[in-house]
Every structure is written in C-alpha cells, then in structure tokens.
C-alpha cells in the first residue's frame, strides 16, 4: 500500500493545488489535428446507378430528341470526366413544351379536382423517397455536392416539398379566407445548379398543387437528376404534358421567359439574370417571382455561446461549398470576442474534410464548375489585393476536379468587394462591430436582403435585430434551416415572391 503525501484536511482558497503538468505557454496553446487516428475512405459506390449516356427532353410525357439534334456534355466536377450528354433545347422545343403544357392545363390538370392532384403529388413524393439513395448519388456525381448533404438534406427536402404541397392541393379553397383561388395556367420555371432536385421540387410542387402545368429548365451543369425526376413523373402516371423539362443553356431560358403563352415565370438564380428577366417581362401580363442572390449578415454578439455560434458560422458559409444564395457570407463578430471566435473557427476548419463528394465522411465536396471555381479565385484575389487577410485550410486537394479549400478573410472592410459581392463559394468575410445597432446598420447596408443570422443568448436582442434586419429569412441561433412550411424569399435585389408555406401557394394562384 502506498502512503500519500498530502494530508491537509481543510485548505484555504490559496491552497488550490499546483498539480498537473506545467501549463503550456500561451503561444503553444494549439490543438493538433494530425494522424493519430485516420478515417478510412468510406465511398458510396456508384456502381449500380444507371446513368444514361444521353438524356433527351421531356415533352408531353415523352422523352424526345431536341429539334437542333445537338447535345452538350455534363461533367462530373469531382474528376472532370464526362457523365452524359444532355439535349440542347431551343426555342422550337420550348414552344412544343409550352403547347404540351397548355394542352394538359386545358385538357386534364386544370380541370382536375384538388384531391386528385394531391394523389399524384403524394405518389411522386413517395417515389422520390424510395429512390433517395440513387438520386442522392446522381446529385453528388452531377453537381459535386457531398453525399452527406445530398442524401440527408437535399433529397429528403425535395420529397418533403412534394408531401407538403400534396396536402395543400385539396384545401386551397379554405386557405385564403374570403377569396376563391384558381390556377394561373402554364408556369415557366428556371432553376439554378446549387440544389438541382430541391429547387425543382420547390418550383414544381406548389405549381402543380395549385393546378398549373409547368415547363421547367434545369441549370446547364446539373440537368441529370431533373431527367430522373421526369422518369418518376412518368412512373407516377402524371398526365402527359403536366410537367415538361427542357434542358439547355441561357438561350433556352430566354425562350421560356419570352414565350407568349406562358402565364408565370419563376426564376431562381443570379441577380443579373433576374434583372434581365424582369425587364423582358415588363409590359406583359406574365406573373413573376424571383429568388436571387444574397450577401447575408451573420451577426455574433458577445453574449452568444461561442462554440455553438462557430457551428452556425460553419453551417452558414461552408454548407454546400458555399453555393447557397442565403449563405452567411458576411460574418459580423462583436469586438470583444473576435479572438476566441477566430481561434475556434481555425480549429474547426481543420477538421472539415475536403475531397471526394461520394465519400460519406466528406464535408466539402467539389465546386460545381470550372467557371465557378475561377469566379471564386478571382474574388479571393480581389480580397487579397484590397488588403484583407486570407486564411485557408491547409489540406491536400484532389489533383483532378474543381476544388477550393474552405477559407476566410479577416480585416475585411465594408467597402471591399468581398464584403459586397456574392462569392458563392466556401469563402467567408469576417468583420467586427462594437454595438448591435452598428451591426444592424451595416448588415442592412447591402443591395441584397435574402437572409440573416443572429447569435446571442439574449432573447430580447434576437427579437430586436430580427425585426429590423431587412432580410426575408432571419435565423436565430441556427443557420441554413429549410422547411416546406416556411416561406422563403428576398427583400430588395434578392428578389420578390415567396416559396414555401401558404405565401408560396399564393404565387401560383389568381383570386376572384
């Protein structure tokens, strides 16, 4: 038996023990994230996923060749290999699609009872849910997003949008007190490349629930899952022409916007293109909703739980490689907590795993396209030139494919381009503020107004800031949360109209 040395019973306050090893000096207080224990690769194997060598247009319930006979390649951004060829739809194809949609509107869908429409939507939702794994792999192959996100977020949300709106289809008459809704007709819908399936669901589900028929154009770089969605529509026996999908580039979109027999345009994408669309629709009777860019402020007050706020920062800007219109790309940190926030952020960045989107452990996948990667690099150069301090995670990026390490800028001024323009990549601009009033003023000092985030332990501060932030969505103590029941949309140059919730339905209805 061992004799113990210390034998004092009641210590004084000064008697706190000088145990433990000698403290590490401040300069060396860093955490090591090395290779004590490495995760083996855990790839989701795409072996049983059927990618067709060529995808046609989906018009009038059939897969048809484009009138031009032209196809363009769809690239896997993770390895720059061609996945498939996509039909290049042109004005003539758009015209056929609109005609098919009009026929379906007049012939079947427009007349169908809400209850019947709901049945189709429920069926589509269930089919998406059944195929989530396959669709998620396709989404990751085509767009570069991580399987972790496509499987756990994108696809479940896409299914949820169909489920949610299926439930509305037979209740529209009671949704708007004293007003009798009716569908608009044919809706032209143009969606972006950052959430291909989810955006398709956001657009199609409410339009169909309200009794409209659709012509959808997926983004040029991410058309594959939309065509698999078309197969789901066919499998669900959706009447022909109710949804038509025309793939192609910008001019295909222009043809949809300018088609005279379209009643409504819904566009999600860049503010630049949104402005062009608004111009071309001026003076027509077409209805329009736009969901455009953003440069959201994520405000961290000094009474916030810092460790949790850092998670919110990560979710805000590195989710989906930062390809998120509502990304928390301008971080405002109250001056008193700048050092601990940045220290934790650096540590957190070091455990973000960048690489193969199909590996289940990957946190940050591939940038969607070479063009976007160049745009991000160009913005990073501009930030450095203008004098902000750049930090990026030192990780080895795959030799092939489009990748960008997660990064942030400190010492950013409001006048810098990186504080004003959308980077649309995993690059954060960090600014500091002294009082919540100052943060509010500067957060609102942007042409955009899509979203914002607030972090504080004080409820009254949350309410004060949330009500005064000029943004369509304000998250408190969380970030980048989506729900089909919650309306989503922008202020100012981030667009107008809402998607999701009852407000989202109203965008696809006329009232007597």
């Amino acid at each position: 038996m061992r004799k113990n040395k210390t034998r004092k019973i009641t210590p004084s306050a000064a008697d706190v023990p000088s145990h433990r090893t000698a403290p590490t000096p401040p300069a060396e207080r860093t955490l090591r994230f090395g290779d004590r224990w490495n995760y083996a690769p855990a790839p989701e194997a795409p072996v049983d996923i059927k990618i067709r060598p060529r995808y046609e247009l989906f018009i009038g319930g059939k897969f048809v060749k484009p009138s031009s006979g032209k196809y363009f390649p769809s690239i896997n951004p993770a390895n720059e290999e061609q996945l498939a060829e996509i039909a290049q739809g042109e004005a003539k194809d758009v015209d056929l699609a609109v005609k098919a949609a009009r026929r379906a509107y007049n012939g079947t869908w427009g007349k169908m009872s809400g209850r019947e429409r709901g049945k189709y939507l429920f069926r589509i939702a269930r089919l998406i849910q059944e195929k989530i794994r396959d669709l998620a792999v396709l989404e990751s192959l085509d767009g570069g997003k991580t399987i972790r996100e496509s499987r756990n977020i994108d696809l479940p949300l896409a299914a949820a949008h169909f489920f949610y709106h299926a439930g509305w289809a037979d209740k529209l008459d009671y949704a708007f007190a004293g007003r009798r809704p009716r569908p608009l007709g044919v809706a032209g819908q143009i969606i972006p490349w950052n959430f291909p399936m989810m955006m398709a669901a956001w657009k199609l589900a409410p339009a169909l629930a309200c009794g409209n028929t659709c012509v959808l154009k997926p983004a040029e770089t991410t058309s594959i899952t939309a065509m698999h969605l078309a197969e789901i529509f066919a499998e669900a026996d959706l009447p022909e022409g109710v949804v038509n999908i025309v793939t192609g580039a910008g001019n295909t979109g222009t043809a949809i916007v300018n088609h005279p027999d379209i009643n409504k345009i819904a566009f999600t994408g860049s503010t630049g293109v949104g402005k062009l669309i608004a111009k071309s629709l001026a003076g027509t009777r077409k209805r329009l909703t736009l969901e455009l860019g953003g440069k959201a402020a994520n405000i961290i007050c000094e009474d916030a739980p810092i460790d949790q706020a850092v998670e919110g920062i990560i979710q805000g800007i590195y989710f989906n490689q930062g390809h998120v219109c509502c990304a928390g790309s301008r971080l405002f940190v109250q001056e008193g907590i700048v050092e601990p926030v940045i220290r934790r952020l650096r540590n957190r960045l070091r455990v973000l795993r960048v690489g193969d989107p199909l590996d289940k452990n990957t946190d940050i996948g591939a940038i969607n396209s070479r063009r976007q990667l160049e745009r991000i690099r160009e913005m990073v150069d501009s930030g450095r030139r203008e004098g902000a301090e750049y930090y990026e995670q030192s990780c080895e990026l795959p030799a092939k494919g489009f990748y960008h390490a997660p990064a942030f800028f400190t010492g950013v001024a409001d006048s810098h381009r990186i504080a004003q323009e959308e980077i649309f990549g995993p690059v954060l601009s960090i600014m500091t503020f002294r009082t919540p009033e100052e943060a509010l003023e500067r957060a609102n000092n942007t042409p955009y107004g899509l979203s914002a985030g607030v972090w504080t332990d004080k409820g009254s501060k949350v309410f004060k800031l949330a009500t005064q932030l000029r943004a369509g969505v304000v998250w408190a103590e969380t970030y980048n949360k989506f729900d089909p029941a919650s309306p989503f949309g922008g202020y100012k140059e981030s667009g107008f109209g809402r998607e999701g919730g009852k407000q989202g339905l109203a965008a696809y209805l006329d009232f007597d």
Partner: protein
Amino acid sequence: MVEERAAAFTKRSIKTSAKLEGLHIAFSMLDLTTLEGRDTPGKVMTLCHKAMHPAHERYGVSPVAAVCVYPNLVSAAKAFLRGSPVKVASVATCFPSGLSALQTKLDDTRTALDAGADEIDMVIDRGAFLRGEHALVHDEIAAVKSLCGDVHLKVILETGELVTYDNVRAASMLAMRAGADFIKTSTGKVSPAATLPVTLVMLEAIRQFFFTTGIRIGMKPAGGIRTAKQALQYLVMVRETLGDDWLTPELFRIGASTLANDILMQIAKSSDGNYQSGDYFSLS
C-alpha cells in the same frame, strides 16, 4: 446547435482499418467499472483479470486503463492488479449522492487513498450547485484535490441532475478551476447518464480551459455507453473537438462495464471475419 453538432459525429463512417484501430484505442481508454452494493472481492477479482487479460492474445488487445470500484474494494483490486499497468480508480466523497459533511467525504477519500487508489472519482454536491452555492462546491473539490496530491482526481458532475447545458458548462469550468484532473459526466446511477451532447459541452469547456490556462484536462463520459459503435462516436467527437493530444488514456476515459465485451466482439469479428457467439466472451 449542441445536439446538431453531436449528431454530426455519429454520421462519420468508421470502417475497416479505421474501425479496428478505433476499437483498440477505445478499449485502452476503458475504466472497467463495478459499483454495486453486492460487490465482493471475488467479483473484483474477475473484473481485474478481465482488465489485464481481456481477450485471447491473438487479438492483440491491450489491458484497459483502470478498474473503478468502491473504496472498500480498492485494496482487493490493488492486490489482484499487482504488477500490471492497470490503475485502480475509486469512487469517493460519499458516492453517488455526495450529500454528506465535507469531513465525511474527506475521510471516505482518505480510505481509498490509504488503500492505494491511483485515481479518485469524486462526486460534487449537486444540491449545493443547483441552489447556487458554487463556492462551496469549488472549495470541496479543492479540499479533495489537496488530499489527493498527485493522485489523479476525476470530478463527477452528474449531468443528468444538472439538466441544462448551461449548468454543465458552468460546473465543468468550476471543477477545472478547483483542481480536477478529469471531469466526468455521471455516476451511472442516474438517467440520463453520458450523452454525446453533454460530453460535447464538457469537451468545449476543456478546450476553453486549455486556451486560457494552458492546462490539459481529461474527460470521462460514463454510464450508458454500451456498444462499440457508441464508443467510436465518442472518439470521433474527441478527435474533432480537442484533437490528437486527447486521444490517449491519459486524457480520455470511458466509464463502462458491458461496453468492453461489445468492443472485444467487434475486434474478434474484424480479425476472424465473422461474429462469435456471446458465449465466447467471459461475462466479467
């Protein structure tokens, strides 16, 4: 946000070589525990032998970090473990409630120390903490630590009774300031015991303490960790929150009893290619 982050650690896919390595690391961090009113030297003997020689040597499993027993059984455990690297941890300070006079708690601790305990797992007075007498809790920990001297002190917060994350964080900081070498979630007598979110809050407190003082404090989740899969999730959390330096039995322990066999079964499966019946593994 705490729950969300904690859930993210469960999504890491730990396969093949990473899994096997993780299982070995986790096993080496075990505090094999028996804390029952019916404990006898005989029971402690089987536990100690399991601690030293957990499985057939072809599996290459190293001994656990420690066994954890009541003070009266420390001397028995010491005797059975003589010559092995396995340490003896003893609960103390009127475990599990800690609702006794300080002097009684110190006597209890001294019993364990005199019997040769290498580590003391003390409980805090949750009643005092919850009614706001933080200074009292602090001073009691400091008193026990000063009695322990170089003997490692683990401070059990009993997070299931503190309930809120704010309380857990505050109690963690308080315990570390008062002299804890380790902070530990639970006694195992209260449900919920260790959970991933509560452990995360404590790891974040340890991180803050390290950044401000330069001192590395250890962490011990205990209670409710029964499967190898859960153990790996805790390792992932440590690895991604505090980094490599904490992936050692010096700074991370798991208090458990049934977990050991599940890890051994998984290790055997990795090596033999198939799961063995539970009958191939000694119950204790």
